[in-house]
């Protein structure tokens, strides 16, 4: 989601300082050569979670009831498209990340979530999560966020990710206070998004783009459609064009939203794309010019084939 307007000026200043670094980092081809994590098919995750019929109430997460927590985990494994970042939050980057995890490694997700709930800390990939006491208090008590209100496991997961990973947009607000999920505290710049993918998941990934400049690709449609054949595609886009919220002619040219591109096709000069965000799939038609205008980052990741156990 977009972050508040009052931060845009700060964003510009800071982005200017970090621009070169971001481009350099995002343009790198990240390859995780280590093959230690086992990916899991959905059946394995379902079987695992079904064995966990009952769960004792966790003293680490006082506002999360075990039954609702388990129900939420099961829903995410059975219907990974349904994970929802909440109304007006800045959790879209974390939701896009969750999409990849729930599709490629649902067993890792299930084990991690149970571990985090029961012990208050857990390891995923190269990262040890030790959420702060404020996060543990807040998870399960968020309100006015639509379906996220009734999904305590998603609250716990998104808050833990935002608490652990910090990018330059989070420099001025590193400490969680109630309501920070809508503010800079939760925002995800492009380099941070790619870093989270690299450190958490066992994926081959490459990324082009930045927080301020469109990727230098002459035929964006061709690039995206060819890449899509081999993996999951995340687009970092300017949401003020995709989901208009005002009729102002003046729109800031900055990306604010992450979507998962599921399909793209072109007929004449019209591109039809199917993408996932906000807990569901959408189909939208747009011109190549519009696609170029909204796209700032393209991250492509592929599950290592030797890991697949389906």
């Amino acid at each position, binding site marked *: 989601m977009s972050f508040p307007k009052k931060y845009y000026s700060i964003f510009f200043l800071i982005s200017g300082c970090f621009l070169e670094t971001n481009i350099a980092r995002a343009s790198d081809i990240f390859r995780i050569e280590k093959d230690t994590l086992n990916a899991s098919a959905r059946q394995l995750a379902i079987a695992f979670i079904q064995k966990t019929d009952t769960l004792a109430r966790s003293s680490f997460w006082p506002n999360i009831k075990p039954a*609702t927590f388990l129900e939420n985990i099961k829903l995410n494994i059975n219907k990974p498209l349904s994970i929802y970042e909440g*109304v*007006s939050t800045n959790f879209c980057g974390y939701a896009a990340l969750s999409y990849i995890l729930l599709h490629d490694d649902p067993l890792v997700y299930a084990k991690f979530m149970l571990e985090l709930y029961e012990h208050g800390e857990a390891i995923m990939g190269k990262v040890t999560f030790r959420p702060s006491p404020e996060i543990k208090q807040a998870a399960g008590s968020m*309100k*006015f966020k*639509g*379906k996220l*209100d*009734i999904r305590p496991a998603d609250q716990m997961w998104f808050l833990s990710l935002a608490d652990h990973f910090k990018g330059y947009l989070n420099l001025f607000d590193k400490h969680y206070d109630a309501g920070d999920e*809508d503010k800079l505290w939760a925002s995800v710049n492009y380099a941070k998004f790619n870093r989270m993918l690299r450190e958490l998941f066992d994926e081959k990934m490459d990324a082009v783009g930045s927080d301020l400049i469109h990727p230098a690709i002459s035929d964006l449609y061709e690039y995206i459609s060819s890449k899509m054949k081999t993996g999951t595609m995340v687009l970092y886009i300017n949401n003020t064009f995709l*989901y*208009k*919220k*005002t*009729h102002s002619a003046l729109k800031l040219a900055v990306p604010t939203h992450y979507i998962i591109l599921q399909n793209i096709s072109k007929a004449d000069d019209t591109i039809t794309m*199917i993408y996932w965000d906000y807990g*569901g*799939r*959408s*189909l*939208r*038609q747009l011109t190549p010019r519009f696609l170029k205008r909204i796209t700032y980052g393209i991250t492509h990741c592929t599950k290592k084939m030797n890991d697949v156990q389906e």
Partner: protein
Amino acid sequence: MMCKSKLYLILFTAIIFCACNSTQKINTKYYEENEKELNNIEQSFKTLYTQKPFSIEFTDRSFDFVSIEIMTDSIKYIYEFGIDETRLKDTLLKYTLNEKGIRDIITKMRSIHCTWINNLDYYVDEQKSSLIFISMRPVGLSKPFTNKKYYILTYFSQPQYFNSEGKLLVKKQRNKIRKINGEIFWRINDKVCYTISARFR
């Protein structure tokens, strides 16, 4: 010369002040003046939404282009049309929507500068409820120097609780203020609330 400059300064300040405060004048009065049309739009939308979920958004300031979101179980289709385009009719028929009813809503929305209508879900005590969310761009709010240009109404299906100031509450007992899309809402009547916002959705 000095006096003239001061006069201009005072006049300029007064104009800015009036423009910035124009939002204060539009509150329950706007609803009362347009109550019949607004309730009509809300009722028509509610009826058609139960047949097949959709939302309508005017994407431009001149109200010549409309975006329709058609929700199905598996996907949401988002299309944009000029209001006179034949594609609009063809698309509504293709997705078996009530073409005449939706066209009627679009016409009524345009007549009162209504920018968006949708059904929103919200949760109280883990129970799902829904409301109709209507945004408008009234002339009074379109003055310069006003950030908040949209008048937003929420139609609840059940009577709501409000505090002594008229702010919408989550529950009567807790006196906790409910926010919708990050905004505080104010009472018009038991089931209808309003707010003035910088965003229409």
